[in-house]
């Protein structure tokens, strides 16, 4: 078992919380893991990515090789495209569809969507909207994990356990909202692929 995942987004959007939950679930499953992240300058609203590698054997490189990623999990649509050179030929792009527009030359969103549609395996999800609908806009990242959950090679229960562990000290209400976000994201993917 090996899952190489590029997590992408914009500095400040919180891709590291995604890495923390998936990483917890991986370690809890007795798997090996390496997760390289970006600190420093780009965290000020620049593009950020994290290389998350999970395997049943020792992981060598902290970086995923080009053409080797099983998934690009992005919380911003344009950012999902920036890392395409990392994607393997049968890899998945799972991306939030809500743009984070903090630059003056952000492309027409239709053009971004067209490029995403050209990718063989893709899931496009309005995670911001889903999180708002369940009354927890802050849980957008957990909706994204849910949307990706069937492709992570991890038990869904372990992801739930990861959420409980990470949000536990914030109280039951926060935990439950995030669990609901996870579940809703997963259901969305099920329906998306039926279409």
């Amino acid at each position, binding site marked *: 078992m090996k899952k190489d995942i590029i997590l992408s987004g*914009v*500095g*400040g959007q919180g891709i590291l919380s995604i890495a923390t939950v998936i*990483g917890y679930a991986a*370690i809890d499953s007795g798997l*090996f*893991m*390496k*997760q*390289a*992240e*970006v*600190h*420093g*300058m*780009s*965290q*000020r*609203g*620049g*593009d950020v990515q994290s*290389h998350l590698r999970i395997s049943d*054997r020792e*992981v*060598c*490189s*902290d*970086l995923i*090789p*080009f*053409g*080797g990623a099983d998934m690009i999990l992005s919380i911003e649509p*344009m*950012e999902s*495209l*920036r890392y*395409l*050179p*990392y*994607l393997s030929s049968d890899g998945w792009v799972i991306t939030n569809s809500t743009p984070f527009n*903090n*630059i*003056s*030359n*952000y*492309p027409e969103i239709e*053009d*971004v969507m067209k*490029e995403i549609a050209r990718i063989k395996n893709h899931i496009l999800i309005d995670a911001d909207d889903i999180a708002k609908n369940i009354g927890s806009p802050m849980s957008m990242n957990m909706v994204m994990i849910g949307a990706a959950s069937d492709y992570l090679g991890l038990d869904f229960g372990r992801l739930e356990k990861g959420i409980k562990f990470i949000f536990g000290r914030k109280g039951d209400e926060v935990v439950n909202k995030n669990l609901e976000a996870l579940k809703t994201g997963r259901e969305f993917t099920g329906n998306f692929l039926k279409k």
Partner: protein
Amino acid sequence: MEKMLLLGDEALAQGAIDAGLSGMYGYPGTPSTEIMEYVQRSKTAADRNIHRKWSANEKTAAESALGMSYAGKRSMCSMKHVGLNVASDCFMNSAITGANGGIIVAVADDPSMHSSQNEQDSRNYGKFALMPTLEPSNQQECYDMAFHAFGMSEKYQIPVLMRLTTRLSHSRSGVLPKQPLEQNELKLPEDKRQFVLLPAIARKRYRILLANQEKFEQESESSPFNSYHEGSDKTTGIIACGIAYNYLMENYIGTQCPYPVLKISQYPLPRNHIEKITSECDTVLVLEEGSPMVEEMLKGYLGSCLKVRGRLDGSLPRDGELNPNLVLQAVTGKDVDVLSVPQVVATRPPKFCNGCGHIDAYNALIEVMKEYGDGHVLSDIGCYTLAALPPFQAINSCVDMGASITMAKGAADAGLFPSIAVIGDSTFTHSGMTGLLDAVIENTNMVVMILDNSTTGMTGGQDSHAVDRLVSICEGLGVDKDHITRVVPLKKNHDEMVKLIRQEINYKGLSVIIPTRECMQTLKRKTKANK
């Protein structure tokens, strides 16, 4: 014991704590910041009463660590690669004084300059100072090497340089901890003149350092961190340093690398292994993160008869960090077909946070500088350097910590008018104060703007020594009280700031303007914590 999930930086910090650390010193700098932050957060460090406060700069950090070593206890100082330039006076001489309690100089390099102004390779400093140097290849080694380094440091009375690079510093993995060691007792050096580098003593100490080189080499030859892996295809032998070893092995998962491989994680180079790989292989390929240090050593000035490949002959790029693909290409000549980035993707450079006080300070400065044209603002290193990018494009330099004030002084000396320095509060207490003193002595005709956000912002909001002290520091250095002015950088104060900057430019002498408003990030964090 259970595995801990740690960044490379954190693994080193945890290793040092468990290996009996008594004092941690440092100045924030990407990618080294998390070493100190981890010690500061650590419950064990609190229980063990380990000193763990930031220092004013890397030099004071290294000196304090050396002082703790002098007193017999184990110490560590951390910094980014360019920080070692600041600390280098202490660093170079500490190789000659040697250590008493074990001391680790932990330096995190930033190849590819993700958050830095150069990509200098600190292993060269280790070689320059004749100091043993460790270069971990993974998080477990970061942890284990703390024990190894303290042990070697006390055995040979020598500080040990630990060199990390960005991808290891900021990558997390499972680390198995060891049984913790007790801290050392306070114990002064047996030779009370060991640290007195008067020429007569320094010459003696230097000869000890030179005589120890052979022993350091022997340590490298038997080091558990250097290893030789046999291979049947001897057309090429591969020397892989630090994390380059992982990039190599990434290409042989589930199979065996056919070539002999020498993994290097401890310097000086292990002569036995080097002799073996160069004698049994036709060509040697050197994989190293940073500068072609080992490659140059093997080649020598005239290139010798040995065939060496690496960054110098174009087998690998001369600059930038390595990755598994570059290594694969250097080893096998193979390239992989990959998707390209669609043209629609726009660059997304970092920028000021919404509501940042620097924005208001710069807007005022930009308005005033319209009258004088571009080229008058010498700046420095921190969040405020982002004003070099559009839409501001307001600054003309960013060189090293503190250089804004002294470069503005030099430019003013040359006749530039107006000459403006823009520096942050933490950078000012790091290395700006001494330069300001130079300007005070000559009452240089310049304006220094200290953008005070009351934190070390770019590295994530570490405590700034400058908080509530800037005015008294400037007064103490001798700046005329009437020309030290604080303002609050807010949109509503724009006209006031414009007027003030204009007025101080027209004053023929040294002025300091201090726009003060807390960083939005630290403010947010505090508000959240108080909820």
